[in-house]
């Protein structure tokens, strides 16, 4: 075993040091601000605690959500704190409140039941009712996602052993960072399934509500920048094209001394490298001063004894 210890890629301490303290705190507060599935002993999400270190932009986004909630009494499922997906299971859009149509489809195929979401806007309590009617201990929650992911599976939460519930995919239905074109659109549940499972599907976000899961790019099919070419384009060019589409930039991300920095404004001559959906009608642009994105820096960590890093450590 000593041999393998010598090729430990990175120690726990080194891994932890890669992450800035505010990132660490931000991730924890983002996670605890998300909804917890029904039945887990918690009736509403905790408010954000002091762990939160919000950027001014995030604070601005929060204010926008509050304003939206207060201004439109028919849609106050939002909370005063952004990112709270309790909105996903608070109440349905008014047009869906009275509909009796089934919100899930259950198709028996062999020894399995294929479950898909028919109505990604319904009250999640109704999904859970339908699972219960099929005697399945499956809990479903919804998260706000970018348009091309609405109605797709964004998360499976089994933490107890290997789950027999598996995703079914529809190639090309959506594009994600990790899954590529293999878009999960439902689950396959053994007909005799007796375990428990937590599923999260994507739902449409409300105006101003930040997405919790997004497509691989804002230029992916179904997203607000689909069809736009951003390679080699300057910030000025891209922002002008976005304006024509009534899309705004929620923030610009750039890298300074190898640290990602969020900016409200960047020089128009900067170049755009990539774009991600952020909220309805809003994107985040990854930008920098050079036409092509600089190569990632060399490792910041020192090599172990006997290990030759491929490049010299970063200054």
């Amino acid at each position: 075993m000593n041999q393998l210890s010598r090729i430990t890629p990175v120690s726990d301490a080194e891994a932890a040091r890669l992450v800035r303290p505010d990132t660490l705190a931000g991730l924890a507060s983002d996670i605890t601000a998300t909804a917890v599935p029904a039945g887990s002993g918690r009736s509403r999400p905790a408010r954000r605690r002091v762990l939160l270190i919000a950027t001014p932009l995030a604070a601005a986004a929060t204010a926008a959500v509050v304003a939206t909630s207060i201004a439109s009494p028919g849609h106050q499922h939002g909370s005063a704190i952004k990112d709270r997906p309790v909105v996903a299971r608070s109440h349905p859009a008014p047009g869906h409140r009275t509909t009796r149509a089934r919100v899930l489809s259950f198709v028996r195929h062999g020894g399995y039941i294929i479950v898909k979401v028919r109505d990604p806007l319904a009250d999640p309590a109704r999904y859970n009712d339908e699972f219960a009617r099929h005697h399945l201990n499956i809990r479903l929650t919804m998260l706000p996602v970018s348009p091309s992911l609405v109605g797709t599976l964004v998360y499976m939460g089994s933490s107890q052993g290997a789950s027999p519930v598996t995703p079914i995919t529809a190639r090309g239905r959506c594009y994600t960072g990790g899954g590529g074109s293999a878009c999960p659109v439902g689950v396959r549940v053994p007909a005799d399934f007796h375990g428990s499972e937590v599923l999260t599907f994507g739902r449409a976000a409300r105006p101003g509500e930040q997405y919790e899961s997004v497509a691989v790019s804002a230029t992916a099919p179904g997203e607000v920048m689909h069809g736009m070419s951003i390679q080699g384009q300057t910030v000025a060019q891209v922002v002008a094209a976005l304006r024509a589409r009534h899309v705004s930039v929620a923030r610009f991300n750039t890298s300074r001394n190898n640290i990602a920095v969020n900016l409200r404004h960047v020089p128009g001559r900067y170049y755009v490298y990539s774009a991600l959906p952020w909220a309805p009608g809003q994107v985040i642009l990854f930008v920098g001063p050079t036409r092509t994105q600089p190569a990632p820096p060399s490792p910041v960590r020192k090599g172990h004894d006997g290990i030759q890093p491929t490049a010299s450590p970063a200054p």
Partner: protein
Amino acid sequence: MASHQGHLRNAGLPADMWAVSKGVALPSPPTAAQDERQRRFEAAYAAHHGPVFGYVLRRTSNPDDAADVIAETFLTAWRRLEDMPPEPQARLWLYGVARRVLANHHRGERRRWALADRLRADLAVYRAPEYTGELALIAEAFRGLPAADRELLALTAWEGLDHGQIAVVLGCSRNAVRIRLHRARKRLAAALARGQARSAHPGVSVPNGDLA
């Protein structure tokens, strides 16, 4: 979760006050149980984020993927907190969650999590080391092993777990761990011997692992 049976409304109430349409008022401040839940998560996060970050980075060559796997691991932990055992088992349970998230990623069921964005930016500077000489041979032999062997060996060598702890992570018996680990070590030793032979006689072809 009775509160979710009704529709949340705040008409006529201050922005931070909520009431349920069926007449049951939700308390505005979080309950003691909610606070306790959050405290428990934060304690586990504070104590074990390093081991979880390490576990994931040691098994992922792509920092982008690592950020999503880490975020999803802690998100799962938060959502399944009731399943998390008390210390000292919590770290092992988190390894188990991370292992399953990683397996899903390797099967292509990956999602890019918005909440991993900041983490993704921080981890972007990480590059897995490349090895030379004898260590390169060890790394190559290790990479050539079946995934189950690699995980067992790594849990021992990289996470420093004993048989009982590995059994908790993998959800199998201690005896099964002992037997599988024994076989994995034999396969590693054989792979290493083959690599060393190849290295000593670079011109000799070694089809199917048999020394020519």
